[in-house]
């Protein structure tokens, strides 16, 4: 892999690292288990690796942003996640922050393309 594409990959990962949390929180207003969440995000164009999502769900739960419960009545036990009150509040703040950032970034990137 060339230096440029290696660098791009690393920077892309850094860029996505912050917004993954926002994407996940935004989809958990209803109960979801890991795989269903991956599918839902993927269907909306946001691909996320299993190895990234599963530990992330657990961390967000430890931080109190998600609640979880085991569902054992189905064919196999599944852990369902749902956004908590705290998580909802944080999602609201982060969403506003994100929209503002997008607006600024559009201006910055737009300005650059006109130079």
């Amino acid at each position, binding site marked *: 892999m060339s230096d440029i594409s290696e660098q791009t990959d690393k920077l892309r990962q850094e860029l996505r690292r912050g917004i993954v949390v926002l994407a996940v929180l935004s989809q958990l207003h209803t109960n979801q288990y890991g795989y269903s969440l991956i599918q839902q995000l993927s269907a909306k164009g946001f691909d996320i*690796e299993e190895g990234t999502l*599963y530990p992330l769900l*657990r961390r967000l739960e430890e931080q109190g942003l998600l609640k979880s419960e085991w569902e054992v009545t189905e064919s*196999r036990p599944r852990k369902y996640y749902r956004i908590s009150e705290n998580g909802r509040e944080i999602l609201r703040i982060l969403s506003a922050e994100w929209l503002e950032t997008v607006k600024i970034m559009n201006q910055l990137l737009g300005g650059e393309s006109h130079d």
Partner: protein
Amino acid sequence: MTDLIERYLHEVGRYVPPKSRADIQTELRSLIQDQIDDRYGGAPTEDEITIVLKEMGDPRQMATLYHKEQYLIGPALYPWMMMVLSYGWLIVPAVVIFLSIFGVLNASQSVTVTNLVIEPILSALQATFIFSSVVVMIFAIVERTGFEWKSDKTAFNPANLPKADDPRTVDRFESAFGFTVGTVIVLLFVYFLVVGGLTLRFNLSDPGDVIPIPQGWMLALIISTTSLIITQLIALRRGHWTVGLWALHTFLELFGAIAIYFAVFVPIFERIVMDNSSLGDIPIPAIITILYVFIALVSRGIKLVQIRNYPSAPSFTTSSN
């Protein structure tokens, strides 16, 4: 078919915290089976399971992602650890080499290049390694106890930052360190003066065999070292060095180097030559002292000129428009 999955889960389980191991494994098992069912239906082949597990990634890496961000020494403690280490890396080898040479001279064995040079160097390396390990271990324990430098966050005031490149600045930690080490050294010299020579047995009533020293030079060494500590403390109290204070400090340091030559180096070297006359051809103590005096003279001289030329008034003004 589940054998591969179970082996994968077992491997992940080895590297996640025991408290949450069962929970993580159960959840991962369910997630893996969901994926397999979704892609391949009820009867996947071993190759298909392999594909899914490969996509999940190396089990050790997967387990690592379940840990919180981890480091042995965090960013809050790291600068402090490096400060302790950097001082230790200077002092520990010096002390160990000094003690090793002393030990050889006081022992009944004959003095050779091996036990006078090679063994002290190896001991110094060993002691430095042990010192570094112990320091890192202590800081790692402090890190694990959740210790935080909360006071630092509230105490920080940009107005208290030292001026950039101000040669008059007194480093608080350097001063504290110099004070501590200097005090120990003065006590050591006083002990040598009282027992009449150099020894490693610290017992006033029975100091053992001592290497005789010129008492006058030892007294001069004690006075110069004590005065050095005092000038350092005066500078610390004032918050900066002045030309006069730095000149006095430099003079005392140079005088101390000459005093240590006569009071410590020469007696030790004479004892070495007494045991092994072949080592007496090169005046090692004189070379070390001259080299040190030369380096000190140049570096302290440069700083003296910098202090003298440093503008006392601020180099810029702020407007209040």
